[in-house]
């Protein structure tokens, strides 16, 4: 396996969707290629950072603000 092939199927490797023999080939490559070890770790960090963006509004108020509710209901009336 080359670094190019490793990078090409990296997402399948992380998703666990590779066949057993393909995964073994990936693991053998990782055992001898420090560049791909670094690439894999940084790729995984990037994915985790993106997924963390999906949780960032947890501290915001869960309610729809009153002024926005009024604006939405008012715009409905306007369009009738």
């Amino acid at each position, binding site marked *: 396996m*080359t*670094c*190019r*092939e490793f*990078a090409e199927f*990296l*997402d399948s490797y992380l*998703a666990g969707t590779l066949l057993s023999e393909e995964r073994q080939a990936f693991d053998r490559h990782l055992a001898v290629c420090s*560049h*791909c*070890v*670094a*690439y894999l*770790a*940084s*790729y*995984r*960090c*990037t*994915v*985790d*950072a*993106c*997924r*963390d*963006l*999906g949780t*960032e*509004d947890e501290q*915001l108020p*869960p*309610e*729809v*603000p009153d002024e*926005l*509710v009024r*604006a*939405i*209901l008012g*715009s*409905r009336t306007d*369009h009738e």
Partner: protein
Amino acid sequence: MTIKPNPPVPHAAPAKEPAEQDEQQFVAALQRGDQDAFATLVRERGRTLLSTLRRMLGNEHDARDCLQETFLSAFRALDGFESKCRLGTWLHRIAVNTALMKLRSRRSGPEVSIDELVPRFSADGHHENAPIAWEDDSIEMLERRENRELLRQAIDTLPAAYREVVVLRDIEGLSTEETGDLLGITPNAAKIRLHRARQALRTMLDRHIRESVS
């Protein structure tokens, strides 16, 4: 940074759906133009939708604009709603489509070329630019709330087709199939786009990290 072994839980499904019969009565009230039903719809369904829009768009102003657009679109289409799907699912789809239109229309700067950001390889298949290991300090830096804006900006500079797929898959937590369906592409095309988008984002973050340590 914590490594998450499992895919994210989709955010799309509301926590609790009313009974189907209750929902049919509620939809009938909306279709009759019942003011109270509209107020209930906006207050109760709006919470989940606003949360979705905040995640997808990353700022409160755009999320509120899109919530208003979502409900306006829904109000116009209510007469044609036939209960083939749940009301929450229908509204969520309208909200996601509204957010996608907003994402397509906005950029924080010049769009980057994806080809310049995916890794390059020599003829024998080795990395042309050797990746460096990200130190723990760099990873912690990315985790800090104030630096999430950096990632948001990086996502906004991706070409629209790549920006959308990252938002739907990694931020909103939709499946590859749902993402492909919303974007009108095959699941495999969505998977390839997502991988290239993640590679491009990794390169942008890597440049930032290299600059910050040099």
